């Protein structure tokens, strides 16, 4: 009973945000946009929670499937829900509620609000569509919805830097999507289906499958910004309005990473090689170290937070060598996937909080040059506190979500005997402490208080950022719950667990 109820809720994950986008696009009255957004973000959260309850109840070996219009694969559009996608839907729903409330305050007396809301909901619809897509072509459509929405949201800031980085992001995004589409075209040519489950059953290693794996991966890596394809990320994430920066770093890059997991560990798993998996891990390790160093050297606060995203994304890619090292034991690869899921949630909360606090500091001071932020802790205690708490989670200090995530990842690396990754992770934590310490050091230095601009961020808005940072820390106290969630249902999305057969 509960699974049939959940099944009928599945299309709502995409339908609700699309409806909200339509309503917001049709009306330019701020009241309507705000009302619609509050109602729909709460409805979306309820849907995600119901789906979570339902998927725990049903057989984990059989993901939920919904055929739009009753057509079914291979011709129709199927939506598929498994443990991993449920977790992604839930964290998206939680962040969308909080960031929507923040955006109401941020765009309160701003003519740009009329343009913000439809694009915001288009982006959310794209994210949810990517998480529940059951076939390779709908993933392409979802990627384009995310790409177009994100580019337009960056451009809302309106400055020349924002427009330039939005344009560069758009070009990179189109390049990535077309690479992905070419890969999908080759897959359809060889296997005659776009359905992910059918593809997973049919895939065999071979030159054309390798070519399509390479094209799909390059496309998704461009969008996930793995070093050396990260060049577009720091300017784009740093020049967007704060709620947009938060959603870009917390969710948008994770969506393409989620798709990478699906293609590498599930759909095209027979075509992957240990060498390629280790290469991804190596690039991730370089990204961790390079991202931290770049974050330390940059002069601007929002750029620092953006470079920190490049570094944190590197940790996610350590999943692939850990899974490659554990092909004899499903326990180990399960552990690695659980760790990465935990990392995604912890980083999403902490990074969203950090971008909101950086946005507050920039709004208050009129600039975000780090060296000129002396004494900002006295003027803006809540924003600096938020930055510090989020920083604790990013560094991976106990007790915080970031600590548990890193601890799980370290355990997986030690159990598989990969000491290189252990050293990289520890070094990454130390380097993160250095760049976050640099900001706090300036913020607490005792000099004359900064002269604020006329625009003073509301305390209630600063508190929203603080609540996100506290959630990132609370995640560390309540690790058991999420671990069970990731273990109990997340495993169904890992190969060799019989989920797809």
């Amino acid at each position: 009973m509960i699974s049939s109820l959940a099944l009928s809720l599945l299309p709502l994950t995409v339908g609700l945000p699309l409806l909200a986008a339509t309503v917001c696009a049709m009306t330019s009255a701020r009241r309507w946009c705000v009302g619609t957004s509050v109602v729909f973000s709460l409805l979306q959260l309820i849907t995600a929670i119901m789906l979570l309850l339902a998927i725990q109840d049903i057989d984990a070996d059989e993901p939920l499937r919904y055929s739009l219009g009753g057509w079914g694969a291979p011709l129709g559009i199927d939506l598929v829900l498994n443990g991993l996608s449920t977790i992604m839907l839930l964290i998206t729903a939680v962040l969308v509620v909080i960031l929507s409330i923040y955006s109401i305050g941020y765009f309160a007396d701003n003519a740009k609000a009329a343009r913000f809301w439809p694009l915001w909901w288009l982006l959310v619809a794209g994210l949810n569509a990517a998480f529940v897509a059951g076939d390779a072509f709908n993933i392409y459509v979802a990627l384009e919805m995310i790409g177009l929405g994100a580019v337009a949201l960056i451009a809302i800031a309106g400055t020349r830097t924002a427009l330039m980085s939005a344009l560069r992001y758009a070009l990179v995004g189109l390049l990535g999507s077309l690479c992905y589409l070419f890969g999908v075209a080759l897959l359809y040519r060889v296997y005659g289906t776009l359905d992910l489950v059918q593809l997973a059953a049919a895939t065999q290693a071979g030159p054309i499958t390798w070519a399509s794996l390479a094209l799909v991966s390059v496309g998704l890596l461009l969008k996930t910004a793995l070093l050396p394809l990260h060049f577009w990320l720091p300017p784009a994430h740093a020049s967007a309005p704060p709620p947009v920066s938060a959603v870009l770093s917390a969710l948008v890059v994770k969506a393409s990473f989620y798709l990478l997991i699906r293609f590498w560990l599930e759909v095209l798993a027979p075509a992957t090689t240990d060498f390629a998996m280790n290469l991804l891990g190596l690039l991730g390790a370089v990204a961790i170290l390079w991202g931290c160093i770049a974050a330390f050297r940059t002069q601007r606060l929002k750029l620092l937070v953006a470079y920190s995203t490049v570094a944190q994304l590197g940790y996610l890619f350590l999943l692939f060598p850990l899974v490659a090292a554990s092909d004899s034991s499903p326990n180990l690869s399960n552990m690695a996937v659980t760790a990465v899921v935990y990392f995604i949630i912890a980083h999403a909360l902490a990074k969203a909080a950090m971008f909101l606090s950086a946005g507050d500091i920039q709004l208050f001071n009129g600039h975000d040059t780090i060296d000129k932020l002396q004494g900002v802790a006295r003027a803006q205690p809540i924003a600096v506190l938020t930055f510090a708490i989020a920083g604790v989670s990013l560094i991976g200090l106990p007790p915080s979500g970031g600590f548990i995530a890193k601890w799980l990842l370290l355990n997986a690396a030690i159990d598989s005997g990969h000491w290189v990754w252990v050293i990289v992770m520890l070094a990454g934590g130390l380097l993160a402490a250095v760049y976050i310490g640099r900001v706090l050091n300036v913020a607490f230095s005792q000099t004359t208080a900064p002269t604020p601009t006329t625009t003073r961020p509301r305390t209630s808005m600063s508190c929203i950022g603080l609540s996100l940072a506290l959630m990132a820390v609370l995640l560390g106290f309540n690790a058991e719950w999420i671990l069970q969630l990731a273990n109990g249902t997340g495993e169904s999305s890992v190969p060799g667990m019989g989920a797809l057969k």
Partner: protein
Amino acid sequence: MTQDLLYNATGIALFGIGVFGAIVAAHIIRKLIALNIMGIGVFMVLLATARHGEITDPVPHAMVLTGIVVAVAGTALCLWLTLRIRLLDDVNEGDPQR
């Protein structure tokens, strides 16, 4: 068979030319045209896939149609951004070549 080969080879060649142009070209508009050429390459490979002897498979056609819509939207967005940047530069009397 020869026709199939011709379509595929042309598609792959166009995709390659597009990738080269998108990475190497310095001017935004050139990059944008290169990306569109890439897209046409993908569409040609898809069209060639649709042919199964006497029967035509409609799925690749649907993919190409969707792809064209997405390409138009993406191109329009990029052109609008380019125009906005140019207008900003004109107002600020910055470097008009950018």
